[in-house]
């Protein structure tokens, strides 16, 4: 597993070398991502556009084009449109769904395009040149480790999970595997669909059902917002920790401000799209080798390093 900093260093170094090289013909990098339909994807759009702007300004011989699509079918059409009008030197894609996008991406690959896949893998891994994702198991595991430490190895926890998907399953698995054998007991676990309103209701129900709760884990920050309102309304003081995940700016701000109930956060940062775009360009311009699997770790965001993850202008 590579560390994030190491990659940043490679990318920046490669880009600096590349900047001094003579401009050849203009290279086109297409970035295909889902449209902003909730906080996390909104963050992806924001960071993809930021990366495009920065790279287009820094390298006159590279053109990064960002295209957002509101559904898997639209993303397939977008790929056709992008590749029909010009030759793509590289494609950075965060696929809507694995199955539907695999064939269309393969078609582009066959034209000689460098393929970078982000976050959600394709069903055929041989298509991608570079795969970059966060670590959902670590999101659950690191949260659990912090909880175990903070609660002294025992306590009653309630969990809110998202939409039944691999992402959600991995986070929950990471959490459950880590608490196995400790005194941490999961009282209840239910779906709240990564939605603040549903999380609010579910937390109200948890509070009605259990007279004593030591900690809450909502595996996404949208849900954590609902949880915090419900806890505030109940006036209960037994809840020592309420943790989320993903790195929403409001929650990271809480960590920066030293909030007692939400002192840490685990990132699954939408800014990973930026890492992917920069690495792809580093390969294209600076011939920096980037082929392979990159898994960004999910280190705890604490008061000490929170600034690195805080983007006040991002919608997420």
């Amino acid at each position, binding site marked *: 597993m590579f560390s994030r900093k190491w990659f940043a260093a490679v990318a920046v170094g490669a880009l600096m070398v590349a900047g001094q090289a003579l401009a050849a013909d203009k290279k086109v990098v297409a970035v295909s991502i889902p*449209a*902003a*339909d*909730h*906080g996390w*994807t*909104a*963050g992806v*759009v*924001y960071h993809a556009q930021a990366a495009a702007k920065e790279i287009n300004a820094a390298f006159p011989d590279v053109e990064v084009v960002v295209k957002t699509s509101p559904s898997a079918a639209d993303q397939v059409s977008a790929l056709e449109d992008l590749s029909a009008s010009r030759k793509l030197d590289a494609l950075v894609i965060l696929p809507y769904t694995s199955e539907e996008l695999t064939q269309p991406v393969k078609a582009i690959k066959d034209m000689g395009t460098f393929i970078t896949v982000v976050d959600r893998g394709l069903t055929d891994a041989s298509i991608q040149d570079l795969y970059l994702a966060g670590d959902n198991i670590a999101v659950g595991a690191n949260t659990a480790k912090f909880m175990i430490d903070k609660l002294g190895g025992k306590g009653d926890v309630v969990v809110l*999970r998202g939409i*039944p998907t691999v992402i959600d399953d991995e986070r929950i698995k990471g959490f459950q595997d880590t608490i196995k054998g400790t005194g941490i007991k999961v009282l*209840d*676990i*239910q*779906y709240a669909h*990564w*939605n*603040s*309103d549903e999380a*609010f*209701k*579910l937390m*109200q*129900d*948890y509070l*009605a*059902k259990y007279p004593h709760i030591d900690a809450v884990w909502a595996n996404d920050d*949208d849900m954590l*917002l*609902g949880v915090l*309102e419900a806890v505030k*309304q*109940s006036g209960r003081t037994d809840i020592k920790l309420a943790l989320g995940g993903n790195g929403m700016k*409001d929650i990271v701000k809480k960590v920066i401000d030293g909030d007692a109930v939400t002192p840490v956060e685990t990132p699954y940062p939408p800014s990973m799209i930026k890492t992917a775009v920069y690495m792809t360009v580093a390969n294209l311009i600076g011939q920096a080798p980037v082929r392979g699997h990159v898994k960004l770790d999910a280190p705890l965001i604490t008061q000490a390093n929170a600034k690195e993850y805080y983007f006040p202008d*991002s*919608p*997420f």
Partner: protein
Amino acid sequence: MTALTQSAPTRSERQYQFSWADAGPFLALAALLALGFLVNPDFLSVTNLSNVITRSAYVAIIAVGATFVISSGGLDLSVGSMVAFIAGITIMFMNMMAPSLGLWAIPAGMAIAVVTGLLCGLANGVIVTVGKIEPFIATLGTMGIFRALITYMTNGGTIPIDKSLREAYRPVYFGTLGGIPIPILISAIVAVLGAFVLYKTKYGRRCAAVGANEDVARYSGISVIKTRTIAYVIQGACVAIAAICYVPRLGAATPTTGQLWELQVITAVVIGGTALRGGKGRIWGTIAGAVILELIANLMVLSDFVSEYLVAAVQGVIIIIAMLVQRFSK
């Protein structure tokens, strides 16, 4: 109920005769409460019940409006997105006005919410009636429009309310008056008004008449266009009131606000005994339907019987059973 002439006597008979069909939703409600108590005694605690009924307020308020639309033979799929859109507009205006108006920005924002709601409802109504487009398709279109507008306004993220207004506005959801949570009082007032208009006014009768048989209504001198359009405007006003209660709960509007509420609203109306094909509206049944939906969800969490994976299936089964009980108790 087929013709206008029959609808009036039926209504007056109902006051004297006990009808199992009309009592259906309330019996279902009582049965659920009893079941809940058996499953977990905490279920009937004051805090739990007041939480659940307060939560059902949004769907109840919107569903009162939907009772008008559906009994007049229409349908509105846009209500969920409309809540999000109105909540977004309201927060934006409140934030904009906060520096100059201070706390007066809250009532001013509420007024803007109501005006926006009326206009959204009018737009739906005019497209359906004057444009003569099937309500399902017309409101499916506006549903997409409102959802896209809120997503655009938020850039896909959230619009939070200004910090200076947050605390002052909070009591509209979390506050109580005489021990009763304010959203419950608001939905009770909306229901009383709705029941009065639907049962006691000429407009209410026209609404049912248009829904029962459009042609007969037209030959009787009722303006179908006007009656249906007004129903959509009432729906818009109800959505605005729901949005006003919604904003203080989490203090933000997001692109996922109100998602799929339209289905909950339609389910509440139908559980309540209103015919989906029009001609018959039951305001109090609708309110019972909205509470039933929230109670089922609450019961699922409070009981330990059902795996988290099967919750939605059990909810579906309970709703279908409730409908079957009504169908065969006639």
